[in-house]
């Protein structure tokens, strides 16, 4: 499952999307919007066709690199309030070690190469600040 969506992420559906009988381990990573001073939400902007392509390529590379069986990546678009989930990555493998490793590697790559940008949405007294 590769999905870029405005609606909240259904974590159970993400996990179910990678279930396989030959996989004994499923690792789920969830990135949530953290409460920082003056910040009430993050706005995510996505270059959707390129991000979709990048996610699909990352899944294929993770399968080759770590020998995992299945992987799903779901990322939010638009405004996500503090406490909301912005990204979920589920990975299924025969044993847990490769699923942990693949999940961590893909999350690093998402931050490094996938065309997604976020802007802090400030409380009423503060101004919005673009991150990087």
């Amino acid at each position, binding site marked *: 499952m590769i999905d870029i969506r405005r609606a909240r992420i259904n974590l159970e559906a993400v996990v179910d999307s990678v279930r396989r009988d030959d996989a004994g381990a499923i690792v789920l990573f969830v990135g949530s919007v953290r409460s920082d001073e003056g910040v009430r939400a993050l706005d995510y902007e996505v270059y959707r066709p390129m991000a979709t392509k990048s996610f699909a390529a990352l899944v294929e590379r993770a399968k080759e690199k770590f020998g995992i069986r299945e992987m799903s990546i779901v990322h939010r678009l638009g405004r996500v309030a503090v406490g909301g989930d912005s990204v979920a990555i589920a990975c299924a493998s025969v044993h847990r070690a490769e699923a942990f490793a693949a999940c961590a590697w893909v999350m690093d790559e998402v931050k490094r190469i996938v065309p997604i*940008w*976020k802007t802090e949405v400030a409380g009423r007294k503060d101004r919005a600040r673009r991150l990087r």
Partner: protein
Amino acid sequence: MRIQVRFFAGYREIVGSRALSWSAREGLTLEELVDGVLAKYPRLAGHRATMLLAVNHSVAGSDRVLREGDEVALLPPVSGGVR
């Protein structure tokens, strides 16, 4: 020929638009197109060193020769996921 040029995040704010239709001669390279865009929007020039370029949704080198209907994207450093 016409090239679609797309801008995101801070670049979109500088240009004041998500996309432009750019008129170009045949054989124009990506680097030449970017030079033209930066000349028109000088405030983008300071970002050139960290700008990532894509053609038709894939990262492309600046020597790429553009074709009619290509979609070029000027991408600021990305910041997806979580902090």
